[in-house]
């Protein structure tokens, strides 16, 4: 539960959760419990937070145990998203730990008469001028940390840190390498039963009738929500298959068909708005236009979403891999007619997820069935087909840029218009629950409309304001309210398409001006850190070797215009399909907690972006999603993965900047620019498949 009032002057999530005992518990046996509202999604956040706390407390890292986030004890830190975990939770943990250390030292000082400044801490032991004088472990009264953090406490200086900035092995990885039960999928409760959903066969389908004879399973049906419950997973699967053939649905066309999305986005009446503008008085010598398209893409998590729930007639307990357990609780309460305090949500790890996938939806499914069968723990796992077709997608997008050059070829005006759905439909703030199953109930309210956060971070407009000095500037959104396919947040939101558009446009303008594209960028940048990453990546990749059908291209952005700077060079080879052979990445994420973790996040984001760039598109006809298995929705395979070199620049004294999403847009842009270098066509539509590129060549 969030504390009532914000406390000014405290960093990160500590401002909303100032009570120190929310974050830390010191136990007499020599352990420290670290509580965070952020969750592990494979990005290594728990490991980084442990490093930060161990450093400030001066204890061995092994003494710190990170408590999985749960709504009873953890600080409410909203959603684990937007590359904000280090900025939100990391800085909060650092300050809370520094406060805890100061309080404990002052208690020791009072008790012993040794002045606090003469007490040092050695793995939790307090040492005075004459030797040991106590320890954290002998001062573990619960009350000690039951006070608010003091904004005046100053955490350690960077040069005094032992662990932060060094490589720390991931806390969660050993279990995953030895096959230990660690995921929500492995979670079992005594007496647990298995529910399986039968989703509507198409988007506009309504359930007309059910023939439930000889189903050998318990049926839970409400409106268009249909589930079977059995004693085993295999029996539930078999019963669901039988039920699917016994449900009669009324279907209708509700979708445009994936081949028509580009035209559909142009045709629906959007809500236009200008969200940033600046006039220019420079005379425009030439005007250049470019429009790019990105189709709907999917999270495509390796595991289908899963949840466990049990209802005792009064209280509901849910285990979930949601990225926002407090927000999930709020929407569950709304959907199920319970008070939030009657719901306990506890995080369990799932497969990697890159935004709002079906984690919250499946938690509702399990909770709804559990409430129909009080006293029985219910586990629900979606099918692969449902995961790829019913999870929220990332919105299709059109980005149009009109740029004016002055007589010397410099950019004098820049107008960028983004047509897209909003990029957030997460639970937590809608007027109706953002939970798929709840919208399928007989009296269920429709899902809330999608939203976009305001600039500078933005949603559709994320990174639509170029970092380049452009003279005149107009950035406009054309928001498409109607969402025949459900969309929500996916890694980097609108930045993937916007950076693709900006960075291919900048090269087109350099070409029009007859200038080197890298120099052209540098000429239009006044941010030294931006210039530094571009120079660094150019130095990393060296001179390209000559070769037919091989090309290199650059992509650059500062994620959200406020997080990490990232410049990437891609080398592609145009064979039957385009193949990305190598990536060089230079990034400036400010202070880095775990260099290996940060580099891994950047590399992973870049490899995933190659997959989006080259292969991915959600395909659908007029009624239903067709790309619902790994053959129909292919992602990058080992033979297609480029080698990747990452270099981290960290100017001294700079605060940490989120790193998890900074590579996505620059990678897509670098690949597009490399394709232009290799075969002379500047792609305008993702994915860059041979078929799409052939279409672009013919269409020129």
């Amino acid at each position, binding site marked *: 539960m969030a504390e009532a009032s914000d406390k000014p002057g405290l960093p990160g999530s500590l401002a909303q959760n100032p009570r120190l005992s929310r974050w830390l518990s010191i136990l007499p046996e020599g352990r420290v419990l670290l509580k965070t509202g952020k969750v592990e999604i494979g990005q290594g956040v728990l490991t980084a937070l442990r490093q930060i706390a161990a450093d400030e407390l001066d204890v061995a890292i092994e003494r710190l145990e990170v408590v999985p986030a749960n709504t009873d004890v953890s600080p409410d830190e909203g959603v684990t998203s937007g590359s904000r975990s280090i900025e939100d939770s990391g800085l909060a943990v650092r300050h809370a730990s520094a406060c805890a250390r100061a309080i404990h030292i002052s208690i020791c000082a009072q008790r012993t008469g040794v002045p606090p400044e003469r007490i040092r801490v050695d793995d939790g032991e307090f040492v005075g001028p004459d030797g040991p004088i106590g320890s954290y472990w002998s001062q573990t009264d619960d009350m000690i940390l039951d006070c608010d953090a003091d904004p005046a406490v100053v955490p350690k200086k960077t040069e005094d840190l032992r662990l932060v900035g060094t490589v720390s092995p991931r806390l969660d990885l050993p279990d*995953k390498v030895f096959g230990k039960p660690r995921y929500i*999928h492995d979670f079992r409760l005594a007496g647990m039963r298995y529910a399986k959903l039968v989703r509507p066969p198409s988007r506009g389908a309504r359930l007309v009738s059910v023939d439930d004879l000889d189903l050998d399973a318990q049926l839970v049906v409400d409106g268009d929500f249909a589930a079977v419950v059995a004693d085993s997973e295999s029996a539930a699967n078999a019963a669901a298959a039988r039920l699917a053939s016994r449900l009669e649905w009324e279907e209708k066309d509700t979708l445009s068909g994936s081949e028509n999305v580009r035209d559909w986005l142009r045709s629906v009446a959007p809500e236009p708005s200008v969200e940033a503008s600046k006039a220019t008085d420079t005379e425009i010598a030439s005007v250049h236009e470019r429009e790019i398209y990105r189709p709907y893409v999917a999270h495509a998590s*390796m*595991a289908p979403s899963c949840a466990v729930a049990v209802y005792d007639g009064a209280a509901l307990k849910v285990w979930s891999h949601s990225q926002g357990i407090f927000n999930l609780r709020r929407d569950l309460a709304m959907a199920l007619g319970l008070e939030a305090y009657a719901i306990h949500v506890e995080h369990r790890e799932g497969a990697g997820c*890159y935004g709002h996938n079906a984690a919250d939806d499946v938690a509702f499914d399990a909770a709804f069935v559990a409430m129909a069968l009080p006293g029985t723990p219910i586990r629900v796992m979606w099918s692969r087909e449902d995961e790829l077709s019913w999870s929220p997608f990332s919105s299709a997008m059109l980005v149009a840029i009109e740029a004016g050059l002055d007589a010397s070829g410099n950019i004098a005006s820049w107008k960028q218009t983004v047509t897209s759905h909003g990029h957030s439909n997460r639970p937590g703030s809608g007027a109706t629950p953002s939970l798929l199953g709840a919208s399928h109930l007989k009296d269920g309210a429709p899902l809330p409309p999608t939203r976009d956060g305001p600039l500078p971070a933005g949603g559709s407009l994320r990174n639509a304001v170029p970092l380049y000095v452009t003279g005149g500037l107009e950035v406009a959104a054309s928001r498409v309210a109607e969402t025949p396919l459900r969309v929500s947040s996916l890694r980097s939101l609108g930045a993937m398409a916007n950076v693709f558009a900006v960075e291919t446009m900048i090269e087109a303008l350099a070409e029009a001006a007859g200038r080197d594209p890298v120099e052209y960028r540098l000429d239009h940048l006044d941010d030294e850190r931006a210039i530094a990453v571009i120079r660094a990546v150019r130095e990393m990749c060296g001179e390209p070797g000559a070769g037919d059908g091989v090309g290199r291209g650059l992509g650059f952005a500062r994620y959200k215009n406020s997080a990490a700077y990232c410049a990437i060079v891609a080398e592609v080879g145009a064979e039957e399909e385009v193949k990305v052979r190598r990536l060089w990445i230079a990034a400036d994420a400010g202070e880095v907690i775990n260099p290996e973790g940060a580099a891994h*996040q950047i590399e*992973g984001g870049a490899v995933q972006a190659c997959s989006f760039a080259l292969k991915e598109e959600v395909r659908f006809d007029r009624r239903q999603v067709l790309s619902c298995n*790994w*053959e129909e929705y292919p992602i990058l*395979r080992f033979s297609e993965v480029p080698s990747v070199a990452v270099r981290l620049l960290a100017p001294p004294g700079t605060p940490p900047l989120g790193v998890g999403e900074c590579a996505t847009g620059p990678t897509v842009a670098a690949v597009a620019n490399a394709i232009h270098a290799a075969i002379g066509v500047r792609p305008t539509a993702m994915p860059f498949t041979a078929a799409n590129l052939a279409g672009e060549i013919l269409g020129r």
Partner: protein
Amino acid sequence: MIDIIVNDAPVSLDLPEDANLLDVLRNHLGLFGPRFGCGAEQCGCCMVLVDDEAVQSCARSLDAVAGRSIRTVEGLGTPDTPHPLQAAFLEEQAGQCGYCLSGMLIASAALLKANPAPDESAVRGALESNLCRCGSHNRIIRAVLRAAAAMRAAGTAQTDG
């Protein structure tokens, strides 16, 4: 009754012939290493060794492996006595969410059994059926090459570990 050997231990199962192998391993034998990803042999998360061959268990029936020896990732090694592949995956920090890793380890174990000195392209080839969404591929490749070198150095490439 269907007899199989799981991680070196004989097991008799009173289950139907068409019982799903992955379901048997996870829900009847409590081996959570093999993971459900797709149910259609398209992602590799559920891989196990059947004798020395890496196979996807999610669409395989129990009777198809009757009398055979099955090894899951739990049977490769433990934290105290890790298989060289498990040690190398930890040394290279070769995983983010980790959901694909059981399959990666099993496919790699089959590769190293057949080819103790693979080059990078052989590793990529052996893992082509295994999907990873987090982009940890390069670290996984480095881990397999590291394990192969360690096993050759220790002269253990001929055993199952």
